[in-house]
């Protein structure tokens, strides 16, 4: 055994939280870019609970396990990016702190047909000063709204980016994540300064 493993610096882990209402497309979003099986489970110790964030499962019978969306992207040998989806239902709010503490930032996926589902996530990130952006997931059958209409309906700050998104598209998901890092940089450097592109 060489024993030299300790001389390699450990990779840095970076965490991004993917949030939004139940069934808004978080699993799809994470799956579009992750290199691993996009689910990890958590046992719910407080009460029997409903299933995973998947529309087919909305009406399924109760279970005691909640599935969290989980994605890993090896950016290079020294940098690991993790994506974690927040559980879509209020009863799992107890899991949020663990997911959000230490996160680089958050994406709030918005379904324009159920815009109010985004409020809990927006409130949470605003309250905890987590950099976030809104990604309006374009469902095929949904009426298209202008982003300015979405911003107005959600009542978010002018500074919060609102972008179109197709959670099925790897390119689109990449664009959202790049935009989020830009937002993090903008917050860190202070508004008004232009972030070097």
């Amino acid at each position, binding site marked *: *055994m060489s*024993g030299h*493993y300790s001389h390699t610096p*450990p*990779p*840095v*882990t*970076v*965490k991004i939280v993917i949030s939004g209402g139940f069934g808004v497309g978080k699993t799809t979003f994470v799956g579009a*870019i992750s290199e*691993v*099986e996009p*689910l*990890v*489970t*958590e*046992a719910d*110790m407080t009460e*029997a609970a409903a299933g995973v964030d998947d529309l087919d499962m909305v009406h399924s019978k*109760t279970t*005691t*396990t909640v599935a*969290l969306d*989980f994605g*890993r*992207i090896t*950016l*290079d040998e020294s*940098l*690991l*990016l*993790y994506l*974690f989806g927040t559980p879509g239902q209020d009863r799992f709010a107890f899991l949020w702190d*663990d*997911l959000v*503490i*230490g996160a*680089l930032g958050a994406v709030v996926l918005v379904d324009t047909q159920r815009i109010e589902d985004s409020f809990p996530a927006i409130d949470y990130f605003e309250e905890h000063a987590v950099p976030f952006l809104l990604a309006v997931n374009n469902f095929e059958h949904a009426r298209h709204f202008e982003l300015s209409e979405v911003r107005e309906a959600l009542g978010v700050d002018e500074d919060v980016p609102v972008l179109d998104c197709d959670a099925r598209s*790897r390119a689109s998901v*990449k664009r959202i*994540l*790049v935009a989020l*890092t*830009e937002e*993090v*940089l903008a917050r*860190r*450097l202070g508004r008004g300064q232009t972030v*070097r592109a």
Partner: protein
Amino acid sequence: MNDRLPDPRMIPPWRPAAVNAPAESPEARRSGAFAGYGPAGADPGGRHQAEVPDYDDPQVRPFMLTGGRTRPVRDDLRIETLLRALPAALSAPLRFEARRIVELCQRPMSLADLAVGLRIPLGVTRVLVADLLADGYLYQEEQPDELPIELIERIRDLVRAL
């Protein structure tokens, strides 16, 4: 012989000593995890597990692996915490999940990666990992408190290049 099935909502019986005894070593606690477990009213004739009633509401079953403990011995383990085992830990007298964790952690693994690799819930993984950290089989990889600007720019550029 009473053939009535136990109430499906019933919690599997633990030996209270295995869960609560404060003086026990972590190793004893782990062994205790298996000592007290068994279906209520299991017949002494040793019929097979297949006859165990299928609890459709297994409230605490995942935590059987931890002797029923749902709280880790330390509370600073996050979902992305990166863990590593010393090669020497491979020859430690560890069993089942603990052994598997030490094997997986021969390279850095996050808590979430371990939960996926072991196919057990995060909370259970967290309890097992905290035990292994306390016993010195695992260590936690240090992470920067705050990411430097240059690193965030590098993340942006690497994501863009994916």
